């Protein structure tokens, strides 16, 4: 599994959402997309999930252009978790997760597909919710269900668009630990758009930093998530704190010299 994003540009009308972004993804890697609101993280993830067509540039999956590939075949290899969730009333948790197996179900649901759903539930530790309706769940539980759907899909590439935003810190760490474990045991890779820079710093192997759709940082977390880089992109003074648990990023205050940027 190797994904190469090359000179990717996506415009909405005249407004460029991402401009000439390139990076690579290798098996067992977790790639974090960071950047302020409106920097193009979601657009990049959605383009990689073939939800949007790019204006120019290319994305190849094992050498194959994903925009000309068979969408049904591609769907077995890419698992996407959106930022905003949609579910219908009267849907149960396990049926929602079962949709992850859509590409393996012709008409009737085999025992094997149900086993996959069970495994995904167990992996995320939410099997006690299996029979509940989606509208009975809390926001965090719901988010875990959608992550479980992607796990049930068992893809080679996970695309997560801020999937942990509704989770409390304990569950955020849980999910990231699970995803690190899953990517390693299944030889898969994960691209995750994330706002929490410490989460990116702790779990990502590669960080892509975006600002106004342009790649402004690319490399190991230690090289990209630096106080000076954060100050430049976010306009926030940050410092590195080192203690017995490791190194942590600590955003301190708004940089008073930088004008307020409302984003797009």
């Amino acid at each position: 599994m190797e994904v190469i994003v090359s000179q990717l540009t996506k415009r909405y009308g005249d407004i460029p959402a991402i401009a000439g972004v390139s990076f690579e993804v290798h098996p067992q890697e977790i790639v974090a997309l960071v950047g302020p609101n409106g920097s193009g993280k979601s657009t990049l993830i959605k383009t990689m999930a073939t939800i949007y067509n790019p204006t120019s540039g290319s994305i190849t999956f094992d050498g194959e252009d994903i925009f000309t590939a068979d969408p049904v075949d591609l769907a077995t290899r890419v698992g996407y978790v959106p930022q905003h969730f949609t579910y219908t009333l009267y849907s149960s948790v396990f049926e929602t997760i079962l949709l992850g197996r859509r590409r393996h179900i012709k008409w009737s649901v085999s025992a094997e597909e149900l086993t996959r759903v069970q495994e995904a539930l167990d992996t995320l530790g939410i099997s006690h919710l299996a029979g509940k309706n989606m509208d009975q769940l809390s926001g965090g539980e719901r988010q875990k269900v959608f992550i479980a759907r992607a796990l049930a899909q068992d893809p080679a590439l996970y695309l997560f668009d801020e999937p942990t935003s509704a989770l409390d810190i304990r569950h955020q760490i849980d999910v990231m630990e699970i995803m690190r474990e899953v990517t390693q045991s299944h030889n898969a890779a994960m691209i995750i758009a994330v706002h929490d820079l410490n989460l990116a710093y702790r779990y990502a192997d590669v960080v892509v930093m975006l600002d106004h759709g342009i790649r402004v940082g690319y490399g190991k977390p230690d090289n990209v998530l630096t106080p000076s880089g954060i100050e430049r992109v976010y306009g926030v003074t940050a410092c590195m704190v080192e203690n017995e648990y490791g190194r942590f990023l600590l955003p301190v205050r708004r940089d008073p010299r930088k004008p307020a940027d409302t984003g797009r």
Partner: protein
Amino acid sequence: MNDCSGSGTRLSCIEEILLRLRTSKPSRQNAKQTMNETTKNSGSAQNVHLLYGEGTKRRLLLIGILVFLLITASIISAGIGTVSISPADTLLAIGEGTRNAAIVVVPSLNNVITITLPAPENPQAGIIVNNFRLPRILLAILTGMSLAVAGTVMQGLLRNPLVSPFTLGMSSAAAFGAAMAIVIGPGIAATLFFLSYESWIVLFAFVSGWLSMLLIYGIARSRGTNQATLILAGVVIGYLFQAGVLALKYLSNNDKLRELTTWLMGGMWGASWDAVILLIPCCIVCFIILESMSWDMNTLAAGDDVAKSMGINVERTRLFGLMVATFVASCCLAFTGIIGFVGLMSPHICRMLIGNDHRYLIPASALLGALILLVSDTVARTILSPVEIPVGIVMYIIGGLFFLYLILRGRGRGLY
């Protein structure tokens, strides 16, 4: 359950189904209790295989019950009316009619089927049942099914619990088309394409219904449209076409006006074997197509983005599904006039009872829609016999009360 036609007994029939269905699934009223149980043994896993098996059983049970009720209601409905016919006579008459029809289709069957059925006690039973009541029953069943399926599919494809052929203005549009066809008359064009008067109306109703669907679809697609805007747009489009219908009424002459008014009231007056024979193949083909799209509709529930990432061509699926649903609904509406309610309520009631899996939801909803319309029509034509009252009156009262009852019982809490 001897008589399913009175509104009182009707409710108790459904009450019984609900009770039987509930036994296998905790209702929302019990949600608190269930939640407590879950927290108590949060470590204990619920087995997906078991849950799925139970769910399937419950769904098949509902479909089985509905099939049984529909057959029973049909036989009862064929027996009651201005002339009462005993169930035995009804069955004999239907048997006789079926054999005759089979022989008409395949003449050689005359030598194969040699059983002679005993003559019914009432000598007119055959004529009354086969010529008058059966086509009407079948038309009610087909229309109920079509509207309910169209409603289910529209709700699924547009992911909006409030849409139905009626709320999206499609019924009004189809009515406008049919009114146009009636006022213009078949004329040269129909003769040119060998169209009967019925298929001429169907064609107009479909084109007009489809036009309204395209409008709705365009509005649904444009950016910044939310679910409420869609309903609002549907209502407005409905009024636009109603204005057209009013104009046609105003402009048409005496004969046309009478035909138009009867038609617009909605009802099974237009029932004939011609209509039924035209509708049966349309309905079967459309139902099969829509049923085969079940999994795509299930996946669309996860949102357009996720559905796309799962390799579904969202736009094409939605357009095609809406087109088929519009076609089947407007075909039936062309014969019955505007009938609301079934398309909205039947899918909802079924969703509440068996969830969102369209593989089961579509047939269950079709059967329930057929049952609602058939029972309502039977009541409408017998309650003040020999005077008929419009089916809408009965249906809105029975169905509306039942739906309110469901909401008040708590099953529908948090519906929207």
